[in-house]
């Protein structure tokens, strides 16, 4: 390898290395990196596409705090995350535990559980809107059958629209996270279960002492991915309720879209997106910190 150290050769080697990365990197810089940096700067400016941008310091953030719609969107986003994250974890972990065994038909179930995730959001939203139909929908027919006199009015009611959206999104996402949990379950050494059995542990005790600790790294990953995903929620809500009824399901991403792309308030919309980014960042870092503390 000695001949590689001559400057000309090293130069050539770097050039070759760069040439591999360049096609993707050029696109990446223009499409992602520059906009990320620009978004940060824009948050401190006043800019509609007609007048030149003007530096206004923290004014956008002041406006944000006093803008009722943005505050409602922030609350709704948090509400959505508080429902979506724990319920998806429970559903996907439950599915993974159920399907992590050798039984006739399990292979089919595993593939089927993944169907909702590859189904387009529009189809999902359209179908669930009909399932949730307050008068004739199958869900309310089922609830009446169970003896509920006044079933919820779901997407037409300000109280029940968000739960309806959450249920739909849990249904859609559980197959995806089930795959991650299944991979985690298969990484737990079988001997640990055998040892626990020899010690006379019941199934529940084995679950508490072997399965849950063994799944910690996966659970951590799933929690982070789900939190980020929840705070970004956009298309499901746009198609299912479009933020309504009223502002009952208006979320942050939608507010960014409305302010920035519909209204052309680039500066203000960027300020909202900076808040969204910081929220996601703080939550992720907190989860990392909690995880590290528990591990010690």
């Amino acid at each position: 390898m000695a001949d590689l150290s001559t400057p000309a050769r090293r130069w050539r080697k770097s050039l070759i290395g760069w040439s591999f990365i360049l096609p993707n990197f050029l696109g990446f810089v223009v499409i992602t990196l520059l906009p990320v940096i620009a978004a940060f700067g824009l948050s401190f400016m006043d800019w509609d596409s007609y007048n030149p941008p003007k530096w206004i310091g923290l004014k956008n953030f002041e406006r944000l705090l006093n803008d009722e719609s943005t505050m409602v969107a922030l609350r709704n986003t948090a509400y959505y995350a508080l429902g979506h994250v724990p319920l998806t974890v429970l559903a996907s972990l439950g599915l993974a535990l159920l399907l992590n065994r050798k039984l006739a038909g399990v292979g089919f179930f595993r593939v089927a559980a993944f169907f909702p995730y590859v189904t387009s959001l529009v189809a999902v939203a359209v179908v669930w809107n009909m399932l949730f139909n307050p008068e004739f929908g199958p869900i309310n027919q089922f609830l009446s059958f169970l003896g509920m006199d006044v079933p919820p009015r779901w997407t037409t009611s300000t109280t029940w629209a968000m739960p309806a959206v959450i249920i739909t999104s849990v249904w859609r996402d559980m197959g995806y996270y089930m795959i991650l949990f299944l991979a985690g379950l298969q990484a737990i050494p079988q001997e640990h279960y055998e040892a626990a059995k020899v010690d006379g542990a019941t199934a529940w005790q084995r679950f508490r002492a072997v399965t849950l600790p063994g799944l910690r790294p996966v659970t951590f990953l799933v929690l982070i991915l789900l939190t980020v995903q929840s705070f970004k929620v956009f298309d499901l809500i746009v198609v299912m309720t479009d933020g309504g009824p009223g502002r009952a399901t208006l979320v942050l991403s939608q507010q960014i879209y409305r302010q920035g792309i519909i209204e052309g308030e680039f500066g203000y919309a960027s300020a909202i997106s900076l808040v969204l980014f910081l929220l996601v960042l703080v939550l992720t870092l907190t989860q990392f910190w909690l995880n590290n503390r528990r591990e010690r």
Partner: protein
Amino acid sequence: MKTIAGRVTLYAGLIAAAAAVLVPFLWMISASLKPNNEVFTVPIQWIPQEFRWDNFISIWQRVPLDSYLRNTVFLSSVITLLQVLTGSFAAYGFAKLRFPGRDILFFGYIATIAVPWQAYMIPQYIMMQKAGLTDTFWSLILLQAFGAFGVFLMRQYYLTIPDELCEAARMDGLSEYGIWARVILPLSKPALASLALLTFVNTWNDYMGPFIYLTSNDLWTIQLGLRSFAGQFDADYAMIMTGSVLSVLPILVIFLLGQRYFIQGIATSGMKG
């Protein structure tokens, strides 16, 4: 689970889970084959009294489905091809070559994967608008073809290919481009398949990108078309379900054919585009 009671509860659980997952699909298919006024009946009819197969014919006259499908196939294929090509090319540089600046660059890629798209969609939109690319396919192709995700996924896979293979090929006088094309690419078929499938399905199902960038009806993808149809003819339940079935069917077939790679891609990366 050796007792009979245990086995019964287990299967009951499995059936309940399968029902929860599949019933919405069954309802969609059943409604797509009904006359419109029989979609919502009390009690529910799971099997249509008479099968209205011509729903699947008349929808093509009601909506420009063929144009929507053509646009979607075009966008998904071009974006997938570019993403796989530039992604695997760059991943070779990141995984198998050493040069100054490499690790800092890679860190830049990883860092932006963590930034939500919503946080920079406004500057992106302004840029596309100034370049006159809004309402063209170019905007979506540029936006989605150079994702960091593909680079990341392929690099993870290339790291598992032993360096000695590349070393041996270098001894044989292959250039780095030759090694990428003739040694690494053939070895990484499973990872290429995973990336291609994930990208294709994600692009096919993407709503937000086309929703923001495409305004002309003749550029719309199937997702936008379906959404607009459902909004315009919101009482045309059976037709809406027919459209949904048609929009889901191609992707479900692709998923079933490649589900092994699909699931592998998700399990190894643990991330989403």
